[in-house]
């Protein structure tokens, strides 16, 4: 059975919507495979607007890995804006892929990558527009298997009603394993229907099928137990870890959209995982252990990616890029290699030390030194001990002095508000810090023409972190604290004019907190708020806190729980957490001890450089940290090939007027 493109119907609607180019596809390096040439069809979604979703590395990697499979294809779909959604509903145009404009409902699998929980309502829009029943239990064999991935999949309980499955961790090998199971099941004539397929997936131990687990609750609202309800389904589901990043150098052919995206550069991931142990950071906890890509593979990916995309800037991505054990070699090697080619190199790093500035200097040899970003995260020395961000005020001042002294004109400082044990005073110290930064910067640079921007947002406790038990700060207190900080900065006559202040108000954080530490009862809230019109909750112009709270009040009516119960309530050691049956490798007792250490303001070092602290991941998952040095430099690489020589005119013809 072939599947028709819906583009003719869509095309008539495009002149009526904003930025129609985002719906037409046509990205460089996109792949279109004939439908009937393969047996397994994946639709991949990043559930946000195209401009946000198209650069997403996770989706690009899986898209390419699946399309390299001879018996599978992958196409991409993104959230449509409300203007097009209304027209699609009025004209019966279904959710479509941008590659071949095939209807999402026709695919075997519908994979969604959730970097943030605020994409949940966009998932419901897509399911609904695709004609896929919202609830997994209402689907039959004619519907795609809906699979969630991404960091939010480490606690997918809030969307357990809507997804058929969730996959934790790295997707490269996992999508191929799932593809193989679906391929075999289809080849055998779909024995046992959808239930059998989901059972085969669940029994691998690496695919979580929520419907195969029952959740019982205590009268006070806490979870009593989560237990599998089918034979052969494991009690705990494991995350996936790709151990050799050099074997998976994806994306090999990064997508280059026609439309402008939020990330107008090529990205090369230089390592996965982080062992700094910042206690608020879910990404750092769930992506352990550290696995470095070798300098040589990184350089080859940069070469290849630039040749295939034509981008003029490359970002070297990871959770803390300056921590790569060979980053100095990589930075110098790449800067030498691309000198004179009008190619920009950037290293998103927020490390507070002089080494970070040396790297940044290297990468901007010829370019503009506009801004450097540092992330002390906590305003006071005490706070930084609580969150295990081992940076002293003297470190920071010394670092910014070096930065301004090296010609950097602006420094951005990232902080969080609402961290455990925080008081007004901890946050107000940010103002003093910023003043000292400007004072130091003016001395170091010899000019008043420097700036410091303080960027601060509310902290949201996340699953699988030492703060998973912590009480989230209510939004009223968060906002009040941020206002006080703003007022103190504004009142600083000497330096205040040089300090920028950017903050995010506390309300969206409460919704994010509800979703990220939610259990299955939160699904009803998501459905109600979506039915009430919630879309694009990550966009302040679309987000409505009141709509969320009204939906929550309705959904939780008469029960023992409410929004505060999920957000501002501290949990204790014995409580069964909704994600306890999902194994990130981290030992729960280690997390608890780290939480207690945090309250005692005791730090823990980075295990990349120091002995193991028994977080549990390597032992549990059979993995190990993988760091250099490999000792390989980029000097051995073949020179960049000359390009464009075949375009030259045969013989120069002089005398043309220019």
């Amino acid at each position, binding site marked *: 059975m072939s599947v028709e493109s819906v583009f003719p119907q869509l095309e008539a609607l495009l002149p009526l919507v904003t930025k129609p180019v985002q*719906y037409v596809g046509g990205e460089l390096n996109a792949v279109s495979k004939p439908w009937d040439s393969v047996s397994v069809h994946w639709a991949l979604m990043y559930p946000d607007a195209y401009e946000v979703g198209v650069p997403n590395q996770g989706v690009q990697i899986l898209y390419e890995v699946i399309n390299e499979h001879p018996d599978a294809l992958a196409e991409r779909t993104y959230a449509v804006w409300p203007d097009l959604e209304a027209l699609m509903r009025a004209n019966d145009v279904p959710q479509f892929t941008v590659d071949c404009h095939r209807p999402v409902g026709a695919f075997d699998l519908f994979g969604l990558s959730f970097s943030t929980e605020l994409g949940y309502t966009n998932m419901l829009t897509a399911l609904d527009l695709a004609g896929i029943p919202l609830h997994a239990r209402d689907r039959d064999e004619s519907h795609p298997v809906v699979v969630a991935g991404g960091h939010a999949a480490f606690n997918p309980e809030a969307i357990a009603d809507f997804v058929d499955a969730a996959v934790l961790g790295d997707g490269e090998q996992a999508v191929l394993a799932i593809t193989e199971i679906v391929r075999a099941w289809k080849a055998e004539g779909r024995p046992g229907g959808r239930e059998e397929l989901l059972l085969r997936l669940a029994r691998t131990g690496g695919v979580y099928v929520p419907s195969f687990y029952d959740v019982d609750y205590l009268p006070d609202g806490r979870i009593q137990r989560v237990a599998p309800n089918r034979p052969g389904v494991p009690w705990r589901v494991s995350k996936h870890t790709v151990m050799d990043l050099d074997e998976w150098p994806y994306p090999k052919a990064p997508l280059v959209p026609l439309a402008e995206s939020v990330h107008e550069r090529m990205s090369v991931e230089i390592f996965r995982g982080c062992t700094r142990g910042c206690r608020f950071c879910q990404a750092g906890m769930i992506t352990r252990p550290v696995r470095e890509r070798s300098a040589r593979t990184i350089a080859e990916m940069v070469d290849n990616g630039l040749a295939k995309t*034509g981008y*003029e800037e490359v970002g070297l991505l990871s959770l803390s890029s300056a921590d790569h054990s060979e980053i100095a070699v990589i930075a110098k090697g790449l800067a030498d290699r691309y000198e004179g080619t009008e190619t920009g190199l950037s290293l998103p790093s927020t490390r507070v030390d002089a080494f970070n500035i040396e790297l940044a200097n290297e990468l901007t040899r010829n370019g*503009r030194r506009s801004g450097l970003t540092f992330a002390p995260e906590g305003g006071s020395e005490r706070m930084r001990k609580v969150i295990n961000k081992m940076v002293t005020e003297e470190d920071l001042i010394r670092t910014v002095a070096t930065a301004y002294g090296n010609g950097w004109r602006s420094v951005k400082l990232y902080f969080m508000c609402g961290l455990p044990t925080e008081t007004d005073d901890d946050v107000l110290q940010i103002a003093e810090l910023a003043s000292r930064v400007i004072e130091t910067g003016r001395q170091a640079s010899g000019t008043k023409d420097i700036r410091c921007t303080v960027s601060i947002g509310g902290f949201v406790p996340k699953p699988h972190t030492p703060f998973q038990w912590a009480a989230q700060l209510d939004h009223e207190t968060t906002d009040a604290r941020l206002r006080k900080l703003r007022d103190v900065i504004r009142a600083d006559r000497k330096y205040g004019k040089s300090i920028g202040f950017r903050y995010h108000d506390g309300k969206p954080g409460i919704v994010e907190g509800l979703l990220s530490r939610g259990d299955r009862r939160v699904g009803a809230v998501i459905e109600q708020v979506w039915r009430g019109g919630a879309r694009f909750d990550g966009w302040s112009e679309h987000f409505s806190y009141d709509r969320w709270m009204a939906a929550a009040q309705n959904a939780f009516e008469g029960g023992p729980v409410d929004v505060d119960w999920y957000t501002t309530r501290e949990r204790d050691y014995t409580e069964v957490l909704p994600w306890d049956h999902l194994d990130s490798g981290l030992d729960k007792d280690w997390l608890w001890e780290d939480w207690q250490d945090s309250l005692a303001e005791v730090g823990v070092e980075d295990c990349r450089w120091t002995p193991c602290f028994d977080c549990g991941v390597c032992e549990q998952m059979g993995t190990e940290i993988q760091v250099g040095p490999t000792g390989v430099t980029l000097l051995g690489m073949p020179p960049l090939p000359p390009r*464009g020589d075949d*375009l*030259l*005119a045969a013989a120069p013809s002089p005398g*043309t007027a220019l």
Partner: protein
Amino acid sequence: MARQAPVRDVAPTVQRLRLRYAKRGRLRFTSTRDFQRALERALRRTGVPMAYSQGFNPHPRISYTNAAPTGTASEAEYVELALVKRLDPERLRDALDEALPEGLDVLEVVEVRTPDLAARLEASVWTVELPGVGCEEASSAAAAFLKCDRAEVSRLTKSGMRTFDAREPVVRLETREASPGADGTPCAILDLVVRHVTPSVRPDDVLAALRLVADLVPPIPARVTRLAQGPLVDGASDGDPRRAVSDPLAADRD
């Protein structure tokens, strides 16, 4: 101290090339900026030895002229490149056309021999398909429009809402009938020649005027294509509308 932009040893421009390209099919939804990014990346992929500007953020030296609006197809868009090595125009045409996506098609490349292409782009020839509009309805609307001395329309521009006359720059407006669609829906076609003025008058402004003066409301959005741009040809008031302008690159070809 603030760093000064480095004085760079940039290679001098030794050749300028003019390109005519088309924007077709679904890629008519690309904006000028979308095209600019696609072109600059295609130039880098093909290794075209572009001349760069000085300064902190050097840019390849490319001049864009008079781009057709987003959503409008075109057979006649013009761009000029400055190069630090002499290229064979035909080879560049082939390589760039290959590197750009289907629908952004490089049609011809000529070496610059005369200044001021922009001044020669005096007028555009447009064809406007109006599915769901009968030819008679379109004809009478066109006649009503042509009878007017002025037809003021408003459009949101970068500098806010502006009101301007859409009648005066219209040199020609004729209607004909397209073969009806598969389901028998009629489709009128407007052939439109418009002088380039400031603020520019675009086909959607003329359609807005037709709505104002004759209540012409197409049930389906019009499909607009720019067929040509160039110097206005005196006395070409009938016949093939494309002949209303002459080839703006003719002078470079001699």
